[in-house]
């Protein structure tokens, strides 16, 4: 690795982190103004994030929606991934593609689709509508991670269990589920973090009734900047780094992101 190559890697990483550094700096300002470098150091904007009723309300909404949506995403993805892998479904490939598409299409298209759906059904503006929409929108992530987990199961393990007399249910519960648990957890974590950050779907479905943190920041962008926005951003980056960091520490992040293990596969 030449010095030039290292310099390039470092430069790109510096560019990627520059906006985050600025946001973090701004969040420390002592007065209600956005200076960088900050003038006077204070942590009161972080405090406001957790004590001010409107910011705290948005934070609680965001956590509730992200937590529930991640569970919905896994509940949809798990049986689908399992059925496609274990049984030769005729429409398996098609179902998998449909499961992948919400995430690949421009989010605004899904947002308009969800908006018209919930308006027709009569749940427009409700939190449950945001939860279900996020769950479906983000189901792609657990679908990909769980499928990856299922494919990496050694077939002889399943055969051994069957030879020992385990029926379908027992194989699924005692062999498959423990083996794919880490992949399920990764999928859950990915969906959680992305739901936490999603704003256009949340805004279109319930922007005026259920305010999430990104929706609140979004509105503040129109009606007046405050350092609290910076504090919220820092918390978000922190959550993402911790969650992905845990996956990286206990899981195989390169593999999850599509790298092949050297030599083990041909």
């Amino acid at each position, binding site marked *: 690795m030449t010095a030039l*190559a290292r310099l*390039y*890697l470092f430069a*790109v*990483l510096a*560019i*990627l*982190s*520059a*906006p985050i550094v*600025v946001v973090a700096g*701004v969040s420390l300002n002592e007065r209600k103004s*956005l*200076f*960088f470098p900050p003038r006077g150091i204070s942590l009161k904007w972080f405090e406001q994030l957790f004590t001010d009723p409107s910011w705290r309300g948005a934070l609680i909404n965001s956590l509730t929606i992200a937590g529930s949506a991640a569970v919905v995403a896994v509940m*949809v993805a798990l*049986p689908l991934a399992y*059925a*496609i*892998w*274990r*049984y030769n*479904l005729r429409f398996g490939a098609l*179902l998998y593609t*449909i*499961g992948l598409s919400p995430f690949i*299409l*421009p*989010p*605004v*298209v899904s947002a*308009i*689709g969800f908006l*018209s759906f919930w308006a*027709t059904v009569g749940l427009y503006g409700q939190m449950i509508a945001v939860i*279900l929409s996020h769950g479906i929108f983000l*189901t792609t992530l657990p679908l990909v991670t769980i499928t990856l987990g299922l494919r990496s*199961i050694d*077939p002889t393990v399943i055969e051994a269990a069957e030879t020992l007399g385990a029926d*379908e249910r027992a194989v699924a519960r005692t062999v498959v589920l423990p083996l794919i648990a880490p992949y399920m957890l990764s999928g859950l974590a*990915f969906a959680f*973090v992305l739901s*936490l*950050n999603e*704003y*256009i779907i949340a*805004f*279109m479905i319930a922007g005026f009734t259920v305010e999430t943190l990104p929706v609140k*920041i*979004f509105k503040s*962008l129109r009606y007046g900047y405050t350092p609290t926005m910076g504090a919220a*951003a820092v918390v*978000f980056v922190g959550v*993402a780094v911790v969650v992905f*960091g845990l996956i990286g520490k206990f899981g195989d*992040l390169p593999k999850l*992101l*599509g*790298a*092949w293990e050297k030599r083990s596969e041909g």
Partner: protein
Amino acid sequence: MSVRNSTPGYVLAFFPTLALGVLFLVPFGIMASISVAHRVTGGFYEPGFTLASYWRFVSPFFGGILLNSVVLSALAAMLAVMIAFPFTYLLTRQPRRIQVPVLVGLLAVLSLSEVIVGFSWSTLLSRSAGISNLFVAIGLMEKAQSWTPGFYAVIAGLTYVSLPYATMVLYPALSRLDPELPEAARTLGASPLRAFFEVIVPVSRRAIVACLIMAFVYSLGSYLLPSLLGRPQHWTITVHITDQAIYQSNLPFASAMAVFLLVTALLLVGFTQRFLGEKA
């Protein structure tokens, strides 16, 4: 791995298929039906069949939106892939203990809400807290100025969000590249830079084109950055869809544009998967 009797498989797949069908496919159907509904000024819409919303596509107004969307997204996609390709290649040559933390950082930036990215870029380019202050401090500029809103501010923002995305799209292909390839080139006397441009880039042609298309679709989907960092003439189709749906209360026209964007994205992504997929 599969068992012969697939009936339980269909039972198992029933619930997720139902969920995806009702909550993902049906909404698109409703959206399509709204796109041909009659608009009620000041209200919502009335069911019916009219192509009025689609006729608005044949106008200089829509032509301008389209041209601007394509120019902005294409430029951002190209810049992002140009930066991401060498970066990803170098990253995949690093040992795991370096790769993993970098990947964690990339994922964190990628998942970062666009509202936060927009907030930080508008701060970064502003007069009071922006980088122009830095240039003043080191004597490159006379006095600090604001660089937003403007065309280049939008390009900067879109390139920034597309960069980690492009990296993630390139990562699988580049990490599977045979490590002996550059070594062979080196043995034959090529400099590392020459080996990169004459061996690595050509063998990755497909991945690069696929990544360009995916990054294009990705930046086309950005709402906040063009509307926050740009002036109304820099608004992309995504911004206009949201504007029509939320602020102009014209859901039929918003839906018609969303249908257009959906079809465009499906064609582009479908083409990429079909002709530029991994297993070619």
